């Protein structure tokens, strides 16, 4: 089978798996998983990040320990724990998609928590003190004064986190989730004679997606930087 015949036969399978007759797979599943993983990781990361800087030790210590443990273990380890122990916790068999989704939400949540924490701690202390002295409660000051400023600069980091998420979804391969790496390996098994070409196409696919997104992050960073500098100048003059 020549390379062009291979592309002609399998391109649709590569993009969407056996959809619409069977379950969604391939590149579409990769993107879907990365985006929904990040959407779930956002609130998790925000809560964990707030927990990391909380003034109450009973909250700060466990959250800090959790973040350290998750960041110190490979994602694959989190995936394995989710794969083998979610069924025993929830009582019914979890499919590969939900397993991967939950693992991604926990793992990326821990990383986002550090981004949120850094964003909060980068703000001058006076911001928080001023908000408190104006009569806002701790949570009110966080919600109305600190977070809007801290999160403003998170957008480029979020796009970069999406790039990481896309790359992380490839681990679904190991638990048999039919995302794009898994599909590529299946095609490789079926065709058998073109491993080099197939894995180059796989690499190129990830590259186009991730490189495009990281350029987008770069552009966003520039756009966001401009008004912020203006504001800083105004404040200092």
């Amino acid at each position, binding site marked *: 089978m020549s390379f062009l015949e291979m592309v002609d036969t399998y391109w649709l399978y590569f993009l969407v798996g056996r959809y619409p007759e069977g379950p969604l797979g391939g590149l579409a599943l990769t993107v879907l998983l990365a985006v929904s993983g990040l959407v779930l990781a956002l609130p998790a990361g925000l809560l964990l990040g707030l927990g990391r800087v909380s003034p109450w030790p009973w909250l700060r210590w466990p959250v800090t320990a959790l973040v350290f443990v998750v960041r110190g*273990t*490979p994602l*694959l*380890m989190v995936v394995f724990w989710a794969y083998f122990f979610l069924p025993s916790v929830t009582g019914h068999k979890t499919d590969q998609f939900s397993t991967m989704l939950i693992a991604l939400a926990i793992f990326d949540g821990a990383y986002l928590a550090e981004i949120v924490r850094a964003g909060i701690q980068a703000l001058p202390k006076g911001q928080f003190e001023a908000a408190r002295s104006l009569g806002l409660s701790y949570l009110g000051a966080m919600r109305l004064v600190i977070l809007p400023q801290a999160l403003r600069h998170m957008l480029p980091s979020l796009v970069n986190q999406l790039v990481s998420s896309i790359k992380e979804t490839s681990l679904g*391969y190991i638990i048999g989730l039919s995302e794009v790496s898994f599909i*590529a390996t299946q095609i490789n098994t079926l065709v058998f004679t073109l*491993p*080099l070409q197939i894995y*180059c196409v796989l690499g190129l696919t990830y590259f186009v997606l991730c*490189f495009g997104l990281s350029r987008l992050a770069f552009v966003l960073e520039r756009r966001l930087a401009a008004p912020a500098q203006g504001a800083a100048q105004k404040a200092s003059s």
Partner: protein
Amino acid sequence: MPSFDLQLLTTGPYHEMLLAGLLLSLQLLGITLVLALPLAVLIALARLGSFAPLRWAATALVEGIRNVPLLAHMLFWYFGAPEFLPDPAKEWLYNHNFEAIAAVVALLLYTAAFMSEDIRSGIRAIPAVQLEAARALGLGFLGAMRLVVLPQALRITVPPLLSQTLNLWKNTSIATVIGTAELMYQAGKVETATFRSFEAFAFATASYLSVSLLITGLALAYHHRFPTRTA
């Protein structure tokens, strides 16, 4: 859930399997680290140098590697790359633990690409006048780099390099996809053989975590010993 079987982890064949896995993971970490650092310095220098084709090639290499997941790199080097080679070379590789070799190649390129970016930003953080002054004193480009710029840049670069080392340590687990018998692979095998998933994964998690904390500790100690200088 049945009680935690500590005996499984401290003695017997499964203990040895897990320990062999941990050892191979540490070897992957060590070998890759030793090879990746000089490669990363070379790539960083190529990206900063004045020779345009080399600069473009290095940029393309770094972006190409960073934007593809490590798992795809592993699959490529294990399944795809041998097609390049003549048959005797293939045979030699398959007889010499090719899983581990392919894993090291993938980890090496992936880690070096990320580290070269850290080194590059470390070098760029050194004011250009340092290089110009060194050149004016009669040092060549490489001499100025080696004697003046790099010693200063490395000081700023060590903390991000340590965090890349941490990433490398966690990334060694991905070698399990191509059947490298490292820690994750062995934990999976013990799990399959004994159905003691909790024990096997607890051992793996504890091992990964200990080494990670060690690296984090090193980073903290370094930061304490050499705080970032503000000019």
